[in-house]
């Protein structure tokens, strides 16, 4: 199989407008590179804008959102993020999405079968009903749902949370996208079910050769499943690189801080930290309406120096590890 070009998001900026106030600049110049057949994690705390990235790429932002700039390179095409119609063309064909809350992701008044048929109708417009039925049942079987023929006639409320999430994954399977965006896919599920669902998502990559953008606040998930990780804070990407490098030798103080916040502490790397149960980053997320021209993390950063507030740092590769990028002027 020829190596297809990575899916690249470049320079995405999104503002949220509200009456009588300056716009909240939710995303500023966000870029992501998603190599083919890889799993890229987008990790950040609540409010960092990670879900907004996903919504912007899918063209599903709220009505009060305004995309300032951005483009997506998919295969040979270049799509402008401000072009809603073009983005709509990607949905269900090149891009697919798995959402956080499986109990709400499916229409309670329609059967599982109806959902799957609808995905197939969009993806394969010429298909007939029998063909779609067969493919749908096969998809359910593939994601590990037993008695799929019976399940087709069930309604969402008759299935458990884990099964519903599998159904959504089956929908993604049928859509055969190039990129699957999984937005906190296991947050609403039990820990025991989480592993199963993540296994299905990873299996998708093997079965249809898609890449996966895994959006999560769980560093554990990132460390276990992702090939690359992008760290986002208050609407800016602060670091990007292969997972092992970023987790064990972070190139940005924020990454270092959050990986230390995680309860599973690498005792070998930081024996002092292993004694403490929690480490809290002092301060709060910055307000998004009035941003200074400085490093966004400077107010809370332990390593901040005067140069950090002198100007807004760019996301640049590390000098000795060019496949990694960071915004910290001290780390480069």
């Amino acid at each position, binding site marked *: 199989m020829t190596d297809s070009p990575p899916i690249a998001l470049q320079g995405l900026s999104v503002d949220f407008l509200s009456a009588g106030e300056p716009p909240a600049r939710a995303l500023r110049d966000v870029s992501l590179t998603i190599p083919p057949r890889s799993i890229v994690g987008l990790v950040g705390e609540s409010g960092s804008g990670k879900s907004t990235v996903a919504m912007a790429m*899918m063209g*599903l932002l709220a009505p009060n959102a305004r995309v300032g700039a951005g483009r997506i390179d998919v295969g040979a095409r270049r799509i402008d993020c401000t072009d809603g119609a073009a983005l*709509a*063309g*990607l*949905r*269900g*064909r090149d891009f*697919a*999405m798995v*959402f956080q*809350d499986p109990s*709400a*992701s*499916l*229409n*309670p*008044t*329609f059967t599982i079968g109806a*959902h799957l048929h*609808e*995905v197939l*109708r*969009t*993806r394969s417009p010429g298909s007939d009903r029998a063909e779609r039925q067969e493919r749908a049942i096969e998809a359910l079987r593939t994601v590990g749902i*037993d008695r799929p023929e019976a*399940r087709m006639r*069930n*309604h969402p*409320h*008759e*299935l*458990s949370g*884990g*099964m519903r999430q599998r159904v*959504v994954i089956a*929908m993604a399977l049928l*859509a055969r996208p190039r990129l699957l965006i999984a937005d906190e896919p296991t947050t609403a599920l039990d820990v025991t079910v989480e592993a199963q669902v993540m296994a299905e998502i990873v299996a998708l990559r093997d079965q249809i050769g898609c890449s996966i953008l895994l959006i999560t606040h769980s560093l554990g998930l990132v460390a276990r499943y992702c090939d690359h990780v992008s760290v986002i804070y208050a609407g800016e990407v602060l670091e990007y690189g292969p997972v092992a490098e970023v987790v064990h030798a972070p190139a940005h103080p924020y990454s270092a801080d959050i990986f230390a916040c995680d309860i599973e502490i690498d005792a070998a790397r930081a024996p002092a930290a292993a004694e403490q149960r929690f480490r809290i980053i002092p301060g709060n997320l910055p307000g998004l309406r009035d941003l200074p021209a400085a490093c966004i993390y400077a107010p809370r950063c332990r390593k901040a120096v005067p140069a950090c507030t002198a100007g807004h740092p760019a996301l640049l590769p590390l000098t000795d590890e060019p496949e990694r990028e960071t915004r910290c002027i001290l780390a480069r």
Partner: protein
Amino acid sequence: MSDAVGIIWRRVLTGALTVVGAITLLFLLIQFVPGDLASILYGPRVTDALRASLAERMGTDQPLPVQLYLFLSHAVRGDFGTNVISGRPILDEILGVLPNTLALALSALGLSLLIGIPLGALAAVRPGSLADRILGALSVVLITTPSFVVAILLLLVFSLALDWLPVAGAGTPGDPVDQLAHLILPTTALAVGWIGYLARLVRASLLEVLAEPHVRTLRAYGVPEWRVILIYALRPALIPVIAILGMALGDLIGGALFAELIFGRPGLGTLAYNAVVSRNFAVVQATTTVIVLVYVTANIAVDILSGAIDPRFRRTAGEEAR
């Protein structure tokens, strides 16, 4: 599937019980009116012969429970006795005019649904737009004007002033066009209020549904917007509409009575009103019983329809699959 039948059966039984209860209530209410049963039922036209035949049919000389039983058994068989004024069986008179009233109420219901639902959907799809705000203001006005007032206004404008539509009656039987012409004004008068109400209800409901995650899922899979709205969002949005259909029909039947009086249409309303005026309570009692029966039946049908559309209300025996 057999569970669904069980639920339907239970609803029918409860409904039947309610009807029986309603008839019993009427019976009890009669007891509190001064005077003997014959005078109450027949008014000033009562004669000794009538009294005697009534005593035989209804057991007026017997204890109350027996009377109640006779009352109920006659009502259940549709035997409401004879109209003392016209000499015809009351049941026949009711059945003669019932189609008119039902036609009016059902047409009004149909018209409200036909216009109200699309208006509400349109407003929900473009919230905050000019069309939405006009609809919002208009709907409040439509809802609050009582239907008999609307009827009078329509009568004024379209019949008396413009002479476009006939004023009174139901039209010549066997001539559908003429009957339709006679149906237009009363139906519109009744429907106006409900159009406003349904538009608001659908708007609010659809707005809620469109904000729900499952709509987002379908959009994320590239389903065309018109399908998302018309097929997948509208169905759950219509659940509250179905829920109030029964109440709507009851309200429309009540309103139909007034519309019949204002437009001079023969129907249950005019029948009952004339009976009240001439103190012929037997007819009123029969009319009320029939209306209650229709209303309860409509409510049962609505409940069944609700269950069919929203599967969460169907108590299936399905255990949760793991």
